[in-house]
C-alpha cells in the first residue's frame, strides 16, 4: 500500500497572531511553525500501517523552502520520503490541485490529510483532492482499518459517530481519535539522523487557477472587561443574561 500524508505547516497554537504590510501579510516574526496537529494524528496512523502492514509512506507539502524543517520532522518520525511542491500555498483549490497531481503521478492508494489546518481553518483541501481525483473520501475520520483494498472508517458526525465501509483509493481527513494522543510520536535522535539520508524531492508546481485571494486581515475588536457578578447575587447574572445579552 502506498500512502501519501499531506502535511500543512502552521503556526503553533500559542503563537501571537499579528499582521504586517498594512494588515495584508501574516507576521511570521517569532512564530514557531509545527506540523498541523490534525496531520500529526494522520502521520502516526500512517506509521502504524507501515509497521504492521508494510505500507510505504510519503509526506508532501505545498509551500516554500521555509517548510522543509517540518517535512524533515515528518521524515524523522518515520516517513520514507518527502516531496515539497515549490510554490506558496495560496488558496485551498490551488493547493488541492497540486496535491491531486502528486496523488495521480504517484499512484497512491491512501491519502491522509487533516480535517482542517489551524491557520486558515479552510477544511477544503481534502475534499477537493477527492473531487479532483475522483477518489472516495471520509471526512473527520476518527478510526481507520484497511484490509485487502477495503477500508472500514469511523467518522465523527454531529452528536455521535458513524462507521462506513468503502474501497481504495481513498482520501481521509483525520483528527484526534484517528490514533490516541498518547501514541503521537516525537522524533528521536536515531530518527533525526536517518531523516538526513531520506529523499526530500522538490517539484515545481503545475499551472493552477487561484479561486480565492486574501485581501487583508483584521483583529477582533478588543474585548470589553468582564462584568463580574458577586457569587451571592446570581439574580443579577440571570438578569444580565436575559435583558442585556439576551441569550436566555
Amino acid at each position, binding site marked *: 500500500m502506498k500512502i501519501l500524508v499531506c502535511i500543512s505547516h502552521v503556526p503553533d*497554537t*500559542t503563537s501571537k*497572531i499579528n*499582521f504586517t504590510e498594512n494588515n495584508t501579510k501574516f507576521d511570521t516574526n517569532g512564530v514557531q511553525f509545527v506540523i498541523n*496537529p490534525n496531520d500529526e494524528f494522520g502521520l502516526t496512523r500512517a506509521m502504524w500501517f507501515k509497521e504492521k502492514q508494510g505500507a510505504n509512506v510519503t509526506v508532501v507539502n505545498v509551500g516554500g523552502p521555509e517548510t522543509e524543517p517540518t517535512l524533515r520532522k515528518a521524515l524523522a518520525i518515520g516517513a520514507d520520503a518527502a516531496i515539497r511542491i515549490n510554490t506558496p500555498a495560496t488558496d485551498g*483549490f490551488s493547493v488541492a490541485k497540486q496535491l491531486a497531481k502528486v496523488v495521480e503521478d504517484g499512484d497512491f492508494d491512501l491519502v491522509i490529510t487533516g480535517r482542517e489546518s*489551524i*491557520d486558515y*481553518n*479552510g*477544511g*477544503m*483541501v481534502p*475534499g*477537493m483532492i477527492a*473531487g*479532483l481525483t475522483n477518489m*472516495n*473520501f*471520509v*471526512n*473527520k475520520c476518527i478510526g481507520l482499518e484497511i484490509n485487502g483494498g477495503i477500508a472500514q472508517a469511523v467518522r*465523527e458526525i*454531529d*452528536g*455521535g*459517530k*458513524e462507521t*462506513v*465501509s*468503502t474501497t481504495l483509493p481513498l482520501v481521509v481527513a483525520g*483528527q*484526534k481519535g484517528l490514533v490516541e494522543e498518547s501514541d503521537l510520536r516525537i522524533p528521536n535522535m536515531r530518527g533525526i539522523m536517518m531523516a538526513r539520508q531520506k529523499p526530500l524531492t522538490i517539484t515545481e508546481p503545475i499551472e493552477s*487557477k487561484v*479561486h*480565492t*485571494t*486574501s*485581501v*487583508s*486581515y*483584521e*483583529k*477582533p475588536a478588543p*474585548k*470589553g472587561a*468582564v*462584568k*463580574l*457578578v*458577586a*457569587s451571592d447575587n*446570581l439574580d443579577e*447574572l*440571570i438578569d444580565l*443574561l*436575559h435583558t442585556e*445579552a439576551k*441569550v*436566555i
Partner: protein
Amino acid sequence: MSVLVYTESEQGAFKKIAFEVASYAKAVANQLGTTVTAVTINADNTNELSNYGVDKVLSIVHSQLDSFNAKSYAEAIQQAAEKEGAKVIVVSASANSKYMSPFLAVGLQAGYVSNVVAAPTSLSPFVIKRSAFTNKAFELTQINTEIKIIGISSNSFGLVENKSDATKEAFSPTLSENTIKVESVDKATDKVTIADADIVVSGGRGLKGPENWGMIEELANILGAATACSKPVSDLGWRPHSEHVGQTGKPVASNLYIAIGISGAIQHLAGINASKVKVVINTDPEAPFFKAADYGVVGDAFEVVPTLIEKLKAFKAQQ
C-alpha cells in the same frame, strides 16, 4: 441567477441552521437585487422557508439521499445550481455541509470560502469576511470565480424573519452510485448536540471528578443546553470524548457558553471563542478565562452552580 441556498433537514425536519443560511441568502439576494431559491433534500414542511425570505423551493425527494452521502448530496445540489444558473450558493458550517462543499466547489469550478461571518463587504470584486487563525483574526477574502460558494459560520448571522411566498417545484437529480456504505450509526438522540446547541454548559477539571457532573447536566437541562468539557476531563475519562471541545476537540459557536471550573487555556479558547457570550465560574480570580469572558462569577462551583440552578428554575417558571 437567484441566490441558491441549501437548507438542511434531518428526518424531514429543518435544522435551525437552515433558517440561518436562508436569512443570509436573503441578505445577499437583496444586495444583488435578485431572489432566493432553496434546495431541500427529503424535507417535509417546506412552507417554513417562507418565513425567511425564500422565493422558490426546489424540493428533492430521493431514496438514495435518505442517509447523508457527501458525493451524492454534492451532485444533487450541483445539478440544482446548474438548473437555476445560480452564481452564489450559500451553505452552512454543519459537519455534513463541510463534508460536501469541497465536492460542490470542484464540480462547479466555484471558489468556496468557509467560516464566513458576515454578508459580503463588496460585490465587485466579491469580498467576504471569514474567521481565521482559530478565531484569533478575520480575513477579508476575494472570490475570483464566476460561481461562488459561501459557507457561513453557525450563529454568526442569526435568524432574520422575512415573509415571502415561496413557490415549490419538484426536482429530480441524476445520481451516480454511492461508494461509501454506512454500516452503523452511534448517536445519542435524546441530547442536544454541541453543533446544534444555542447554549453550551461546559465543565473543567475544577469539578474534581465525574460524580460531580449531575449539577452540570441539571443546569444544561434547565437551559435546553448541550453539555461539554475541557480536554483533560475527557482524557481522564470523566466524560465521553464526544464532549471534548477546543482546538483539538469540537468547535463551539453557540450564543451562550458557560465555563465552569475551566482555566481558559489558549487551546481551549481557540475552539470556543466563536461563541457570542461567555460566562465563567471559577474560584481563581486570576484564571485566564476571565480575560476572554463577558460575565464572570468568582466563586466555588459547588456553591454557585446549585444556587444558579434554583434561581434559573424560578426565572423559567415566571417566563
